[in-house]
């Protein structure tokens, strides 16, 4: 009896994507902890830092500091939005490595409005809108090339990431005060363009959070509740079958990439205007939110709720970096944990082999009975 129960747990585990995601995350943390132990540091600091960025209190006697919680939530905004970007494309069977580029282009568009146009009411809203449009165009290009010319979206998005990076620099240098000072910033962002803070005013938690929540809801609604979403998912499962049943797969690919890009573009605007920057940026490299978005979507199984939770986790890791550095633990351990999580998710396909093996064994047993 006991044996049977155990077996059914294994079956449940193998078939539940949520459970394997949780297992993968735990495994990533375990190996990260072992690594910290191996190099002779105390892993307690790692978990203390993580705890502090979740509840804002350090240990037993630590003071409450809600700023940490606010920063955690603020960091999770771009992670979740980029995760939605990756996840949306994944549901249509596309691998959008281009969230980073779409994020950069969105930030560029927002910065153009925020730096070059004098302050006016609701400037921030215009900034967010142009960022969404810019990201959608950048993603749409890939979708168009994929649908029309069968260009691999993986290679195309990698190329567009770097094109976006250098395009940003070329244009940012042309913005007011872009070339004059050497501190890699442009003229200040107009006050009307900044996203206002709420709840925890000492942190950078801004109203971009509500736009992120709205994006999650829109994601869920489009995917699960609309005809368009059905066409997307059908294309993702089997392009040819979708085509046969009258779905325009090409247009599904192009438009899904555009929507995908829109999420990432919004992320770019939220980071720029979210309070961390007072002047326009001249980026020197990638911010990596887009790449981490891949991990977020994978952990979240491309479902809206899953991406939301996974994005929060990544926000926690990001905020805990600065705290654990003070506890003598290299903050890069969080990157290692994130990388390990993605690798384990890739290895998850091995579970399919386990499943296939188990069903083979089962069939053999049945055959022996007969």
């Amino acid at each position: 009896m006991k044996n049977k129960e155990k077996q059914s747990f294994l079956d449940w585990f193998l078939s539940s994507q949520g459970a394997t995601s949780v297992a993968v995350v735990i495994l990533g943390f375990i190996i990260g902890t072992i690594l910290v132990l191996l190099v002779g540091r105390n892993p307690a600091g790692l978990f203390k830092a993580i705890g502090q960025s979740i509840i804002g209190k350090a240990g037993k006697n630590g003071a409450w500091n809600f700023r940490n919680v606010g920063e955690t939530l603020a960091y999770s905004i771009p992670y979740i939005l980029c995760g939605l970007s990756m996840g949306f494309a994944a549901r249509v069977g596309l691998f959008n490595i281009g969230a980073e580029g779409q994020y950069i282009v969105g930030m560029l568009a927002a910065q153009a409005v925020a730096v070059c146009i004098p302050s006016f009411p609701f400037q921030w809203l215009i900034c967010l809108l142009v960022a969404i449009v810019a990201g959608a165009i950048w993603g749409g290009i890939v979708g168009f090339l994929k649908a029309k010319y069968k260009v691999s979206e993986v290679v195309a998005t990698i190329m567009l990431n770097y094109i976006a990076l250098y395009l940003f620099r070329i244009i940012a240098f042309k913005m007011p005060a872009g070339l004059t000072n050497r501190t890699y910033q442009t003229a200040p962002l107009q006050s009307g363009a900044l996203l206002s803070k709420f709840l925890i005013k000492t942190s950078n938690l801004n109203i971009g959070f509500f736009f992120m929540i709205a994006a999650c809801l829109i994601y869920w609604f489009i995917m699960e509740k609309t005809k368009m979403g059905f066409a997307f998912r059908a294309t993702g499962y089997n392009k040819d079958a979708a085509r046969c049943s009258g779905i325009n797969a090409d247009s599904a690919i192009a438009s899904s990439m555009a929507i995908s890009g829109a999420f990432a573009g919004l992320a770019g605007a939220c980071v720029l205007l979210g309070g961390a920057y007072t002047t326009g940026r001249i980026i020197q490299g990638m911010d990596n939110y887009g790449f981490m978005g891949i991990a977020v979507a994978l952990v979240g199984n491309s479902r809206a709720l899953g991406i939301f939770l996974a994005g929060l986790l990544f926000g926690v890791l990001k905020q805990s970096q600065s705290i654990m550095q003070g506890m003598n633990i290299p903050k890069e351990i969080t990157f290692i944990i994130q990388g390990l999580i993605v690798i384990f998710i890739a290895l998850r396909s091995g579970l399919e082999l386990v499943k296939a093996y188990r069903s083979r064994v089962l069939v053999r047993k049945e055959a022996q009975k007969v």
Partner: protein
Amino acid sequence: MMIFQSIPTIMMIVAPILITAIGGMICEKSGVVNIALEGLMSIGACTAASVHFLMEAAGCGRYSLAVALLAGMVVSGLFSLIHGVAAIDLKAEQTISGTGINLLADGITVFACQILFSQDRSKEFRVGMLTDKLGFYPTFYIAIAVVAISWFMLYKTPFGMHLRACGEHPAAADSAGINVRRIRYTGVFISGILGGLAGGCVVLTQTIQFTSNLINGRGFIALAAVAFGRWTPWGVTGAALLFGGAQALAVLSTNFTALKALPSEVFNILPYLVTLLALVIFSGRDYAPQSCGKPYNKSSS
């Protein structure tokens, strides 16, 4: 005149890109997509820089460069095997495991520096590679050797034919008695050691320490060179020369009065833009190995 004087500098920048691209090409020819080249270069560069610094400090500077390159190759090769296990044995989505290695490399290199040197970069070594009489670094000759050997191996040896067969039609290769799994592992491992070698070449010629943004897209340029060079050694060499040349111009453009007016980023964009356009222009024809990126399932065929 200026152009001739710049050739060694251009070659210094081209060589690592070319070496990595050849590795990526071999990997894809065996049927496994490898977008982890960037991360593998990073790991190779970090290992080579650390080993070279430590050996130099210990006073065995004479053999240090060769040992450093070798160490970079070995460590990076071992990391590439993670991709091999995922892609070949576990039939994973190859883009995902590649992305995972890239992310992991970001963390593990700087983490290693934090542990070894208590800072977020490796310590500066005193002397890297030296140029010869013509002004070329040894990496130039290494790159030429890599191209020649890879061409010979791919087209003139039985192993090369087997490797190409595994990328085109693994089932046919299998039925002819070729061990697809072993060949693909070899392909991935070669891309790992060449990526590590190239990373070492970057750090030992172009700078004096490893930093987190040292590789800065070189691996992705190599990936572009593989696609633009249409998966042949000579095509990849041409693409790497073009792209590396563009990267060099980004550095050198201040020396040319005619190019000064352009922002240097224009040259940085060039490889990516050219590759994207080429993919569109050549979209009708398939140059990529046919089964590239598809796991081979022995039992189902």
